């Protein structure tokens, strides 16, 4: 699942993930992503932007981590928020990894491999 309010970024990340063999669903903010999960979507991994309208990425991470049924979802922040304190907040909330924009496709693949959701 790619969660980003920029349709260009959803396109770019979606293309990378499809190239790595994933099926991709998209959401433009955390609230719509939660709605998709509530309607039965169960992604292996969610790539989550931080600054989004309606529900931001940190609120999404907190909401997902509160639900036992969604505990298996791997959460990776993909965001411009690069202050150390923000990274610590996201990881403390339950995000597994953190990628700072701009990124390369290889950086995304490397992080996914580190998380064990992508086999090289």
């Amino acid at each position, binding site marked *: 699942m790619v969660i980003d309010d920029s349709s*260009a970024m959803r396109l770019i990340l979606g293309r990378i993930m499809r190239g790595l063999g994933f099926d991709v669903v998209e959401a433009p903010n955390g609230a719509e992503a939660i709605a998709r999960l509530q309607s039965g979507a169960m992604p292996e991994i969610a790539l989550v932007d931080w600054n989004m309208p309606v529900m931001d990425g940190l609120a999404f991470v907190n909401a997902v981590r509160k639900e036992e049924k969604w505990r298996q979802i791997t959460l990776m922040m993909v965001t411009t928020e*690069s202050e150390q304190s923000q990274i610590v907040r996201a990881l403390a909330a339950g995000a597994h990894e953190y990628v700072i*924009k*701009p990124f390369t496709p290889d950086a995304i693949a490397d992080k996914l491999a580190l998380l064990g959701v992508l086999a090289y």
Partner: protein
Amino acid sequence: MTYIPSADDLEVITREVWTSFLDGDPDGLLPGETTPGAEEVTGCVHLSGAYVGSIMLRCSAPAARYAAAALFSMQPTDVTQNEVVDALGELANMVGGNVKSMLPGPSALSLPSVVHGQLAVPGAQVVREVALSWRGETLVVSLWQQAAQAA
């Protein structure tokens, strides 16, 4: 005293964003003029917290179309205004987020806004600016700071 990223810092960050997402060529951005021309588009993000100000990415309308076309993998003639707004907003967000990491924190980054034309922030002044040229079109990146904080 507050550390303010240099114009070179703004250029390095912009070059990294452009290289990663727009043309893959680190030499694609050249020194440019500060006047983009009659028709301009400006993407902006605001900072609040330890640093109060804005980061703006102002470019000519053709440059904005080229950027949107590159991000959406389309022909420049095919991009819509919504795609231009989305692209400039995300580019301003990426440049702004990385500039923010060099400023005093903690600070919060706003959602991006995009306007056709130039944008001025009441009570703020430009403290750093770099003018670049991309595909023959002008791109200006500027860091603003609230005058009260700059004093």
